[in-house]
């Protein structure tokens, strides 16, 4: 007798990409048994699996999948090969019967009601059992640091800005990117930093004082072996300068080099002891354990970064929690940001699914999310002078296209649940803060009559 556990069955479904199994509850220890006997030999099963694969696009729920298998086996004249209570075929689940269609009679004359039929709108309420972890970035004097203030991320109990469901204790924060060597920047961005590009400390100061950054992300890209290959010890001196220059919490990034980053982040963790910085990032394909340990040893936060895959995100978070023993209040996730037009739909849906899983109680995914919104500048619409496509309508001045590309990328992801934005264009930072503050109930204002556009001339 071949036995198949429900887990294996789900694995099988997963293999065929049937991944939308949310909301399925399995009671008890359900086992699917494959009976010995003529009809249920391996080839039959293989055939059934092929059928499963064919109908995969409508197999949203496991119970439906069971219904299909039952049905298919019946059509094939085989006994139901699975020893579970199968729905009886051809009897199908009862569906609600709609009332008989009302006969429509052509009315020759239009009779109008005198009064409105009074109705009451009862909003449908949604409550989630889970809560997103609150994570504190930065430490003030009383906690052994030197930051002027801390930034708290997370704490949501409902979808972003759904204040009518539950209050949102912390609105998303914005960090501005600073680099330890001149990076390649779009013109519209560069012109705002031209005077500070050589000095990361001044750069950070300008970002905070002039552009309102809540945090600074310092990218130590010069450590890249393909660039200057600055030794870790030397590179982190810039971190010390920046810590001196500004009072906001700091995020520290490496160059993305898998071999070198762990060492760079380790050194950074040492020199920033007590400041509760965020180490960006631990990834599955680098020595995440070493980065996690550095964070733990020196009281920092880890950014858990995966490439747009909810399952990998869960895996890495679990590694950090279970194997590296990082505390939940020390983890932030970066599920990867793709620019508007260049995968934003994947990024949005991936983040939205992660957030909803967290709210539904999956504690492996209930962490604040961070977005590298600066990625928006990779979209050619953001930086290219004209459209390279011959028949496109005019793209207009790029100085105006770039910032809005960053804004719309950020805004869209804020609606998926992002708590921390890493950005660059000061105008984009201001507008995104404005809209998030408004939705979050922090910004007031109004127009005389919102219906005036109906009549406005010009």
């Amino acid at each position, binding site marked *: 007798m071949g036995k198949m556990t429900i887990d294996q069955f789900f694995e099988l479904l997963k293999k065929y990409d049937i991944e939308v199994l949310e909301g399925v509850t399995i009671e008890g220890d359900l086992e699917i048994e494959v009976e010995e006997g003529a009809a249920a030999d391996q080839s039959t099963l293989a055939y059934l699996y092929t059928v499963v694969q064919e109908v995969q696009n*409508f197999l949203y729920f496991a119970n439906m999948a069971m219904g*299909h298998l039952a049905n298919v086996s019946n059509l094939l004249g085989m006994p139901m090969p699975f020893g579970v209570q199968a729905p009886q075929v051809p009897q199908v689940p009862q569906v609600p*019967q709609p009332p008989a269609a009302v006969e429509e009679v052509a009315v020759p004359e239009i009779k109008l*009601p005198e009064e409105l*039929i009074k109705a009451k709108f009862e909003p449908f309420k949604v409550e989630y059992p889970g809560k997103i972890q609150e994570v504190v970035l930065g430490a003030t004097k009383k906690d052994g640091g030197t930051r002027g203030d801390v930034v708290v991320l997370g704490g949501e109990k409902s979808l972003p800005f759904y204040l009518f469901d539950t209050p949102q204790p912390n609105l998303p924060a914005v960090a501005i990117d600073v680099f330890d060597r001149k990076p390649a920047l779009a013109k519209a961005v560069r012109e705002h930093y031209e005077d500070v590009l050589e000095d990361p400390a001044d750069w950070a100061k300008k970002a905070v004082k002039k552009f309102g950054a809540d945090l600074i992300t310092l990218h130590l890209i010069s450590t890249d072996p393909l660039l200057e290959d600055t030794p870790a010890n030397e590179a982190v001196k810039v971190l010390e300068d920046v810590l001196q220059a500004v009072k906001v919490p700091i995020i520290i990034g490496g160059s993305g080099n898998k071999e070198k980053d762990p060492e760079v982040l380790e050194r950074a963790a040492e020199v920033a002891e007590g400041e509760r910085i965020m180490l960006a990032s631990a990834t599955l394909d680098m020595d995440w354990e070493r980065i996690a340990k550095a964070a733990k040893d020196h009281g920092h936060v880890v950014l858990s970064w995966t490439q747009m895959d909810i399952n990998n995100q869960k895996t890495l978070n679990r590694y950090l929690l279970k194997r590296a023993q990082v505390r939940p209040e020390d983890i932030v996730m970066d599920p990867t940001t793709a620019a508007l037009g260049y995968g934003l739909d994947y990024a949005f849906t991936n983040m939205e699914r992660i957030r909803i899983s967290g709210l539904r109680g999956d504690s492996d995914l209930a962490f604040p999310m961070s977005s590298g919104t600066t990625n928006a500048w990779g979209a050619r619409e953001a930086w290219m002078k004209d459209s390279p496509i011959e028949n496109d309508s005019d793209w207009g001045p790029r100085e*105006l296209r770039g910032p809005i590309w960053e*804004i719309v990328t950020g805004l*869209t992801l804020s609606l998926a649940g992002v708590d921390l934005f890493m950005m660059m264009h000061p105008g984009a930072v201001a*507008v995104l803060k404005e809209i998030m503050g*408004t939705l979050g109930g922090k910004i007031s204002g109004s127009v005389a009559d919102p219906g005036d556009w109906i009549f406005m001339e010009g």
Partner: protein
Amino acid sequence: MKVKSPLEVYKFLPQTNCGECGFDTCMSFAAHIIDRSVKPENCPPLIKDAEKDPKIKKKLDQLIELTSPEVAEVVVGKGDMAIKIGGEDVIHRHEMTYFNPTAFFYDVWDTMSDKELEERCSKVIEFKKFYVGKFLTLDGFAVRCTSNDPETYRSVVKKVAGYGKPMILVSLNPDCMRAALEEVSEEKPLIYAATESNWRDFLKLALEFKVPVTLRAKDLDLLKSLAVTFKNAGVEEIVLDPVTEPLGEGLKGTYERVINLRRTAIQGEDKDIAFPIMVTPIAAWLMEGDEVEKGYWETVLGSLFVVKYADVMIFRSLEPYSLLPLVTLRFNIYTDPRTPVQVEPGLRPIADPDEDSPVFITTNFALTYYTVESDLTSANIKSWLLVLNTEGLGVEVSVAGGQFTAGKVKELMEETKIEGKVKHKILVIPGLAARLQGAIEDETGWTVKVGPMDSGRIKGWLETNWPPK
């Protein structure tokens, strides 16, 4: 829709597997009803039998009701240009997909000069933006009555109708609306708007001219009362405008109203308000500020509600910085997440390459492709990019899953005749496909170099690896 499984649909079908619908079996047809690519009306025998047999007719009606979308679908405009709004079934796109992209209407008004009107209308109909193999366009005009004069409005509406695009007629004055409808009701414009004060006149117009109507009220009890009253009087095509307030607490309230309407329609199954939602980002133009500030804020409002449930919108700004992000975002959000977006396989020349340029290969998964393509283009790397048909899967997955194989690479190289285009015989494969290096060398006879893991690093990689030593 109320049914989730093809089995539930199957029992309403003739079960003869006649194939007239274009599918081999009724079961397969049923599956496509569930994924909404077909409707019950697409089964010819069922329609024919229903004409003869009232019992079958009843069954058909039941099936239509059970499989109709949670939010009513409303059609604006006629013929090829007609546009469907609403018809949504889910709250989050990953639960299935969103169906009818938010329709974008651009405002013109009846006190514009002829020249201005013409210019604006031409801009709307001519706008196009190339994206993922097609041109994105705008949907229609919102013609506002600013003269408050029926005859002026009538003539301008008639002029705008000449462009053949769907229209929203905007006036709270029933006399002006009547004049316009006498002229263009055949075009099936959406009328805007019935309010607490004019609803009886607008109800009459909607019934008399058989056009879809927008109901406007900030108070959702009132909005629902209007909807119930209109529906009860026989109006089926209804759009709800919960009033867009452009800033401050007003905007926060707008967000709440829009979300509550959609959530209550779909999750709360309240059929009385299960209609398409209208949002009017044009209200941003009531704020203080210069053109760019208003245009930006209008785009922000538009983006917010493209993501959150608006089915139809009225805009003012025709500046590229407004149009480009909005049409792109709308495409992204309304893309069916169940099928990976693919691009045409083949060979793409980047930055005018020549016979010494490197040859790269990537997959036809749109996201991978566009990332690589834009990385190469933005770094201005003269190169040839081979796009392999991996059935829309990314590099890592397709290497593991067998859609990215040495054999297929060879076929692609032959089809595209890449050998005749370059002097060298060196192919650069993605870092994530490194393990195919040997196999591709054996299969093609080319030298295969393993590129970086991330196409963003191709530039640096080339510095040490190209031209080959």
